[in-house]
């Protein structure tokens, strides 16, 4: 049991935060912001498995988020599917797509991989934008309400608990994965790829695997997003959105699951806080991004954790 506590200390803190946050919530708008932060956090937890742990960049992950969202919207409205089935189909489809593209492109390294993932994101975004008969084009489309076993999630409050639960589950799964032989293989191929190969790790296999898993995390969050938001529009899967996800992961802390969550919450809340000084928002956002990377390149959570550890040690 104590091993569980040690491994999942972050998970427990997160659960406590999720339980206590509603005490400070005044209105539905607050809930809405928190729900979006939670959905972003699910994407970023998955993305960080790829970037932070396996060391492979993706500048196209918003496309997988968007595909999940559009799958749910299209399948529940146009085809009348149940929301859970639609979500599952979306994740499966995104998984297959990610697998197909991952095999060739994950041979690329560094900036070339960044370019390739960016390209895939742009292509998917253009397709969804252009095929207006299916997707509604730039106007977007909406999904049927989300329901599980007959219970339809309608209020912001019920969504808050749903997303909170899903986020906890995502963090739990990701933490388990990192501390398994698969997780070690991922970290090893990041740390020293040749070293990993000579001890028997098929590095290509693991890169593809984690790309697929992180894409499915994004698709899952995208499906939930589609049911929660009034309309799904192509803006959710553009290049800028992909960059935002990467920024959340890096800002919070690469190779840190809790860092992903913290990064996603801060970067989602920040624009809302800055909304009152709208004109200065991008300037402050840009300055924060540069400042964090210059002064704490490891990201927020690992830097703070290190400071705390140093204080504890004599």
């Amino acid at each position, binding site marked *: 049991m104590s091993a569980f506590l040690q491994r999942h200390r972050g998970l427990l803190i997160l659960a406590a935060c999720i339980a206590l946050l509603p005490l400070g919530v005044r209105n539905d708008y607050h809930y809405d912001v928190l729900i979006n932060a939670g959905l972003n956090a699910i994407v970023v937890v998955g993305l960080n498995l790829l970037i932070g742990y396996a060391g492979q960049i993706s500048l196209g992950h918003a496309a997988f988020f968007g595909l999940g969202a559009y799958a749910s919207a299209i399948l529940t409205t146009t085809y009348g599917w149940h929301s859970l089935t639609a979500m599952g189909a979306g994740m499966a489809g995104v998984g297959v797509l990610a697998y197909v593209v991952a095999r060739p492109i994950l041979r690329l390294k560094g900036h070339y991989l960044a370019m390739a993932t960016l390209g895939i994101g742009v292509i998917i975004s253009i397709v969804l934008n252009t095929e207006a008969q299916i997707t509604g084009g730039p106007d977007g489309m909406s999904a049927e309400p989300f329901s599980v076993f007959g219970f339809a999630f309608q209020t912001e409050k019920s969504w808050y608990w749903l997303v909170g639960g899903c986020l906890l589950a995502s963090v739990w799964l990701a933490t388990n994965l990192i*501390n398994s032989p698969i997780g070690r293989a991922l*970290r*090893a191929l990041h740390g*020293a790829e*040749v*070293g990993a190969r*000579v001890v*028997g790790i098929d590095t290509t296999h693991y890169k593809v*695997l984690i790309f697929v898993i992180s894409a499915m995390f994004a698709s899952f969050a995208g499906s939930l997003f589609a049911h929660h938001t009034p309309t799904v529009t192509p803006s959710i899967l553009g290049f800028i959105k992909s960059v935002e996800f990467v920024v959340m992961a890096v800002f919070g802390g690469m190779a840190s699951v809790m860092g992903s969550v913290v990064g996603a919450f801060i970067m989602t809340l920040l624009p809302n806080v800055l909304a009152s000084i709208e004109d200065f928002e991008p300037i402050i956002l840009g300055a924060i991004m540069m400042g964090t990377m210059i002064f704490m390149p490891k990201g927020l959570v690992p830097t703070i954790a290190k400071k705390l550890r140093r204080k504890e040690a004599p």
Partner: protein
Amino acid sequence: MSLLKVTNLTKSFGGVSAIRDLSFTIEPGTIHSIIGPNGAGKTTLFNLITGVYTPSSGSVRFADREIGGVEPHKLAALGMNRTFQNLQIFHNMSAVENVMVGAHLHLQKGLLHSLLRLPSLARSEVETRKHCWELMDFVGLSQYRDAEASAMSYGALKRLEIARALAAKPKLLLLDEPAAGLNDTETREVDEVIKRIAAQGITVVLVEHDMKMVMGISDHILVLDYGAKLAEGTPAEIRSNPDVIAAYLGNVG
């Protein structure tokens, strides 16, 4: 039957031959050393045997299978493992996790098991960690059981790589300059470790500059010069071989 059989092996980089028409065999259960002046092609030979480079021509057979050009991770599954002269340590992990990566081939790796941390996986993880701590003890790294790899000295990391390679349970272990950069005490410790590894029935091939160590522990020595074989034999034979003496001392006089 020989464990490793190299026949007419050649590797050139942009027209320059780093290894030229090299043939030799390695018998199981022995300690072999490959020596030669700097630039003789020792590390290139290691990279060819372990699949990091693809041979330009010639054949490498391991356990009676052709392995020239086979990817490194498949060779590891066949029972070949190695360490690196310039280290290939996973600095983003703890010391024991580095060794646990070495055990990768022998672990349960189901995705569902990993995501849900099913009891069978949790148990196997505990056992693996214990086993890897024992391997760290074996190579003399007991005090680093809870250390991060990034906090360890060069000499300790060299031994950590040996422990990692052992965790893969190899039949053939290739050590690329295991004593380079170590002080005398550390060299003697590594010397002991290599002998104990061989005593377990693992065939050891090492590239090494420390002649005292090579002469002390090798059953068989291969001398390379400019990528080709200069001499081969027991330490006593090598010591009295005029070509070897000329290659090593000739330039001095």
